[in-house]
């Protein structure tokens, strides 16, 4: 089943698009995970990254590629992506927990300290998550970036929280 048929991507599609992140890079701390596997005319992510970690090039329909070693995990690219397709995953958050940061444009906006249900790419509830950070500066242009802490084993699946 592909994104074209079901509306969400599989891990294999990330690998095919060369957008998967290596275990070694994950071990070093937070990293941007780009999940944009179709050739669409779009490139703000490339411009958003000041560290040259995202490459689209020409033509503009090339798939975005992450140079994982250049990524500092700053998170600046998340709110700039009109596809809301970039996440920041930190598998080193604690002994047992990882964090996933994602754009969240619904109301109410989660608040730090709250418990929300964490969902995967199809919106299925995976586990409970604790909101550990919410950023919404002017530069994000009304796309809040929410960070949720979850048990480590769900780090590759959780991509949002369930709307309240």
């Amino acid at each position, binding site marked *: 089943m592909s*994104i*074209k*048929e*079901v*509306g*969400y*991507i599989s891990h294999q599609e990330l690998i095919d698009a060369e957008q998967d992140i290596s275990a070694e890079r994950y071990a070093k701390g937070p990293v941007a995970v780009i*999940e*944009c*596997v*179709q*050739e*669409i*005319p*779009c*490139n*703000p992510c490339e*411009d*958003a990254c000041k560290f040259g970690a995202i490459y689209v090039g*020409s*033509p*503009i*329909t090339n798939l975005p590629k992450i140079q994982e070693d250049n990524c500092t995990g700053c998170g600046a690219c998340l709110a*700039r*992506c*009109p*596809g*809301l*397709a970039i996440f920041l995953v930190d598998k080193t958050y604690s002994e047992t927990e990882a964090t996933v940061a994602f754009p969240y*444009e*619904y*109301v109410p906006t989660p608040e730090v300290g709250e418990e929300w249900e964490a*969902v*995967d*790419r*199809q*919106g*299925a509830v995976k586990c409970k998550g604790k909101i550990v950070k919410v950023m919404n500066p002017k530069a994000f*242009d*009304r*796309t809040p970036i929410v960070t949720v802490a979850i048990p480590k084993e769900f780090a590759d699946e959780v*991509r*949002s929280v*369930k*709307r309240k």
Partner: protein
Amino acid sequence: MLTRELLVIGAGPAGLAAAIEAAKNGVKDILVCDLNMKAGGQLFKQIHKFFGSKEHNAGVRGIDQGVQMLKEAEELGIEIWLNSAVVGFFGDKIACIEQGQPDGTKKIVYMQPKTIVIATGAQENVVRFKGWTTPGVMGAGAAQTMINVNRVQPGKNIVMLGTGNVGLIVSYQLMQAGCNVVCIVEAAPGIGGYGVHASKVSRAGVPIYCSHTIKEVKGDGPDGRVSEVTIIGLDEKWQPIEGTEKTFEADTVTLAAGLKPVSDLVKLQDIEIVFNNAFGWVPVHNDKMQTTAKGIYVAGDTTGSEEANTAMEEGKLAGVSVAEELGYITMDEAKDQRDQIWDRLRGLRTGPFGEKRAIAKVVQMGKFPVD
């Protein structure tokens, strides 16, 4: 009779870009007419960040792009008449305009401009099924106007038909407005719009049923409003498969089954039109966006529904060509500018989503008579 160097019909991204580019190249005395109360065309309903490149203001919300363009138009002294529809064309480029008056009434005025850019956009296709006239069944564009311009919910529980970008984006925005999207139904075997848009609604738990269509809508709600929607699976030949029905409680159905160009005005000037599978009936034009009628240009969704960025680029082409026709820039200067614009346009029309449109455009332009 009134006259202008350039009359632009439609103040969407294509029309505004045409007016701005013409003005930048020296054209004076430009008028843009729009039948809406607000300029900006589709942009003012689009609260999401746009795709594209830096040159196309990618990442900027549609609504903010509209504001930017209006500011630029104002700075360049471009006149805009709102609430003013062009309702007819006579003889040699005589436009009949229903000019909106400050007191809300309308006055008919006639104008014979030297050049015209038609940028009237597109309109939604209708889909018929049992119960399609039930109150609560509406176009996705109407629902989008309700939530993003008028700030009212079209309903609580919504079934969306169509997975093009319009269907996907409006579904997302309905949820942002606090509605519940029950499901999205698509007759084709695959999702039509961008995967990243589909992923947004999937993450929100909205199921997408491909190879399905709406079989029936029941109107047992208050005042005969939609109460129930039954969908049915389709085989490879798009025929309903009995026994695959699913029924959902819903009070609203929104239709996003594609757009077709608004080309009534084009037809009134005996401009040649051509049919193609990607766009429907569209005016024949050349690489200057000139139609088969001298002095009349087209741009944007009127020439085949695409995107705001392609609409703006086509508008720019038309604006440059108008300046050339009126003698403000030389043939070479115009060609230089157009070459740059065409480079960007070709870039936008690559990839699996753009190729079909690129080919359709080549065919459409190929019909232009060579002299």
